[in-house]
């Protein structure tokens, strides 16, 4: 990606987000289903219902509602949640760190695991055992993250109860945090017992998110390694008497990394999207779990805010990946 392309992509972000906002907004309002009906106690008078509708602006025409919402959103005010009665911005901000920590841990696990599998695969290249690795990668890839979540929950939560299967931290553990980045904070402040408890809760959900992604990294990296290994420079290095591991690490690996980041990076968004369900399965308190609650409660402002949050994360991730590829690939740097 050339630098002009970066600027073009940056300029495309506001219209894309605007499109997302419009679609969600319209979608939520053209269909039947009254959020107010979900929150009133039985026996509320029609006046009370009307007052609530006016309070949340639901009595206005749709275009008016959107203009009001957009005007407030531009100042950072995303409205108040109908089901939790708090500012959407504050709610999302409080939960987002939990999801980011989970996604980050999952990405780390996926990269390390993917590297290891690719290395084993390339080491076995041409031998019969290679298809075991390839087949395993195929299975890892075919089963999506939420099924892995259920399988891991059954295996290591129930059959061999090694790990907790719900929540972010043990409820009986009495700790207070200053930020909502529990794991980062406990690691930075040296409270390793707390970090350990947090990690125990995060291992299964993050592993579930990581497995398909690790398989993808492994497959792309192994293919690129195999291609790079057949190139002249690798053959020459071998002819000069360098050992195979040395050639793989110092000559082949850097060149195989570019397609891996480019192709694999795009898929990080899939991992992020997967948090919605995986968090639900493990009752992990992130924005994904919150989004499902918001949908079930027909909490329009909260759904709107959460979908936009995901959209911002998706677009930002794609841009970062493209930038990293540009930085890694010397051919693209001078466009």
């Amino acid at each position, binding site marked *: 990606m050339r630098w002009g392309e970066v600027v073009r992509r940056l300029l495309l972000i506001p219209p894309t987000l605007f499109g997302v906002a419009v679609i969600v907004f319209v979608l939520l309002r053209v269909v039947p289903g009254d959020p107010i009906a979900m929150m009133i106690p039985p026996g509320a008078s029609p006046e009370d219902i009307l007052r609530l509708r006016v309070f949340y602006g639901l009595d206005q025409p749709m275009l008016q509602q959107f203009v009001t919402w957009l005007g407030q959103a531009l100042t950072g005010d995303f409205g108040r949640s109908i089901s939790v009665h708090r500012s959407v911005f504050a709610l999302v901000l409080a939960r987002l760190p939990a999801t980011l920590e989970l996604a980050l841990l999952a990405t780390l696990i996926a990269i390390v695991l993917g590297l290891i599998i690719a290395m084993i695969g390339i080491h076995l290249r041409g031998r019969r055992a290679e298809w075991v690795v390839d087949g395993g990668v195929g299975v890892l890839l075919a089963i999506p993250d939420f099924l892995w979540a259920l399988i891991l929950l059954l295996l290591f939560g129930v059959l061999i109860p090694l790990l907790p299967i719900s929540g972010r931290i043990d409820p009986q553990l009495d700790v207070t945090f200053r930020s909502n980045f529990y794991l980062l904070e406990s690691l930075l402040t040296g409270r390793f017992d707390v970090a350990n408890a947090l990690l125990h809760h995060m291992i299964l959900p993050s592993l579930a998110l990581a497995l398909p992604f690790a398989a993808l990294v492994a497959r792309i990296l192994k293919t690129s390694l195999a291609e790079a290994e057949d190139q002249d420079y690798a053959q020459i290095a071998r002819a000069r008497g360098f050992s195979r591991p040395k050639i793989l690490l110092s000559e082949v690996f850097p060149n195989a990394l570019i397609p891996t980041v480019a192709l694999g990076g795009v898929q990080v968004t899939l991992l992020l999207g997967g948090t919605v369900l995986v968090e639900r399965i493990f009752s992990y308190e992130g924005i994904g779990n919150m989004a499902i609650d918001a949908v079930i409660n027909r909490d329009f402002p909260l759904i709107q805010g959460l*979908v936009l949050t995901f959209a911002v994360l998706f677009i930002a991730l794609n841009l970062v990946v493209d930038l990293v590829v540009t930085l890694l690939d010397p051919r693209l740097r001078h466009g």
Partner: protein
Amino acid sequence: MVDLALAAPVAPQARWIAALKRGGARLWLGAALVGVLALVALLAPLIAPHHPLEQDLMSAQLPPAWVTGGEAAYWLGTDSLGRCVLSRLIYSARTAVAVALIAASLAAAIGIALGLIAGSFGGWVDQAISRLIDVWMAFPPVLLSIVLAAVIGAGLTSVIAAIVVVDWTRFARVVRAETMVQLKRDYAAAARVIGLSRGGLLRLEILPNLVPLVVTLLSVEMGIAILVEVILSFVGISVAGDVPTWGGMIAEGRQIVYQAPWIMALPIGCIIASVIGFNLLGDGLRIVLDPVQRQ
């Protein structure tokens, strides 16, 4: 290396047999898994030992028959309302197959149409469709289908609508790119030279060349559609509550996972077998239909 002298013209039949052989184990295993799924769905009332909604509270949460405490009448045990797990698994296959067939075909039809239009017209039409795809790709797909299904309301139609609305981009993106590639090929230029109209060119020349790609995508999409239906019914916003679904069974099983883990494990097994079946079938078909490898 292919010895050209030996590559004499082959009879079409022989070519098909060769192609099917090339599909290999993947094709056969995939076709077998998908075939079993389709048969089970089709014959559900004949092969299910019980009605899926028939409750027997006296024998609730029975383990599978071969485990101690199991009963021969309930091969795979019962759930917390004493309903036969095997029968519920069998009837759930009907929902899965219906959703897979209808949703995937509709998503394919819309995606292919828009992809062809974008790829062949270019210019502002392509720009408009591409921007639409961009906006779509900015949504987390799972969340979008959950929101859609929730707002449309429970029912098979809403599940299908949710899948089609979310997944048409898979087809549109690939078909658009492939149409552009094919239109640059010599044969497309030749067809234009002999005076074929744009519509004729697309229908007679481009579409047949897209078939391998689309068939593969379609097979994979059917697997995805099954997964989305599972997700929606797991969250509790799929078909009506009394229709058995694998996702619904998993959600119920999650509540009592410590007491009766098999209730959750069995539908997971069915889903994995179906999804792997559709993936293998797609892989196998791609190899069989690939025109480059056909020679």
